[in-house]
């Protein structure tokens, strides 16, 4: 095969995409019949690219993602100022509520699998719903953060720690909601951070 007669990469691409006039397309097809291995490999690669682009999505995330990340950067990289750490107090625990007389055992059993907790600081309030997943006996923690000031809920990142090590990280959505799933029983700490302050739930005990 005379290498100078081999279709160039750009010709192969135009031919594959149907961009050549009929006479040029026929010419490329004829030259391909005696193409060397390198040219054939180029053609195969281009076919793979076409296959990939038809079966793969490339899309932009919703604008809210960029907005949240802009805000997060602004608050994370602000000039250093006084940093505040708020230790949250448990102000509501559904398990601590008095049992209503005559409550059916099935309803109580359901309550045993779900627990509502509210933690309060001057900077923000955090509500948690803890549910157990049967039969694995692991837990889901669904939370919602309510900042007291102007901080957007989007700005919060929430760390879940066990034995002082991060085991999970979540980002609060526009409603301030976040979720940690599939947690084994044990003691955890939650740290919700936004810019110059963080709210800490020092002890969340998930128990069977």
């Amino acid at each position: 095969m005379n290498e100078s007669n081999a279709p160039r990469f750009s010709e192969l691409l135009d031919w594959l995409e149907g961009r050549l006039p009929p006479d040029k397309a026929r010419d490329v097809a004829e030259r391909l019949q005696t193409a060397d291995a390198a040219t054939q490999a180029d053609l195969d690669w281009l076919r793979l690219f076409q296959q990939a682009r038809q079966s793969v999505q490339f899309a932009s995330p919703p604008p809210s993602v960029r907005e949240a990340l802009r805000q997060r950067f602004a608050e994370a990289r602000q000039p250093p100022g006084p940093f505040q750490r708020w230790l949250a107090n448990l102000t509501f625990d559904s398990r601590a509520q008095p049992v209503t007389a005559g409550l059916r055992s099935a309803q109580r059993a359901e309550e045993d699998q779900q627990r509502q907790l509210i933690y309060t600081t001057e900077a923000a309030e955090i509500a948690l719903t803890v549910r157990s997943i049967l039969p694995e006996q692991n837990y889901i923690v669904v939370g919602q953060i309510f900042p007291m000031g102007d901080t957007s809920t989007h700005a919060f990142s929430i760390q879940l720690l066990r034995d002082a090590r991060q085991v999970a990280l979540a980002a609060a959505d526009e409603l301030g909601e976040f979720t940690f799933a599939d947690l084994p029983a044990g003691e955890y700490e939650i740290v919700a951070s936004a810019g110059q302050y963080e709210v800490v739930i020092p002890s969340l005990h998930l128990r069977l």
Partner: protein
Amino acid sequence: MSQTAQNDILKTDRDLIRACRSGDARAWERLLDKYERLVFSISLNYGLTTDDAADVAQITFTILLQNLDTLPDDIRLPPWLATVARRHTWRLLAQNRREAVNPDEDLAGNKALGGMVDDRERRELAEWLYQGLSLLDERCRRLLLALYFDAEQPSYAQIADHLKIPIGSVGPTRARCLEQMRQSLHTAESPVSVHRLHPLL
């Protein structure tokens, strides 16, 4: 791509990271412009819904932000971001499977992508494309994304106008960029065996 060109890309990301450490918001925007779409698409191609993929993208870049000060100078950002995104995608997929009333429901919100390939092959093609696109210079990456992955299928004229290039150069440049991508993938350590993807190669 030559080692020099690859080094140029690394240098650019390194400069952006250094600028972000100094609080330069424009550098952060540039990083997001470069990689936000690719990170988001990794989760989409694993079958997450748009909302879940958006969460993963947000978490991934939040982790980048948290680690800006400790990243090594020679960090290769595309595979680092891909690894973080993949890890959180798997976690969310496992969580969704556990919570689905009907195991098939977790697919209901997802776009049916190309009946030509199965899920595993599609993910491998996505990773292959992702790696190839991330190895390109920004001009080529923007051009190929506009030509081949924009759902609105802009014309050459629209692309030329948007990218501020002569309309006559769109065709030849696309060929050069694809050739560059081919060479980059050939020389890079690819996690995906092209031969395994395409039995004819």
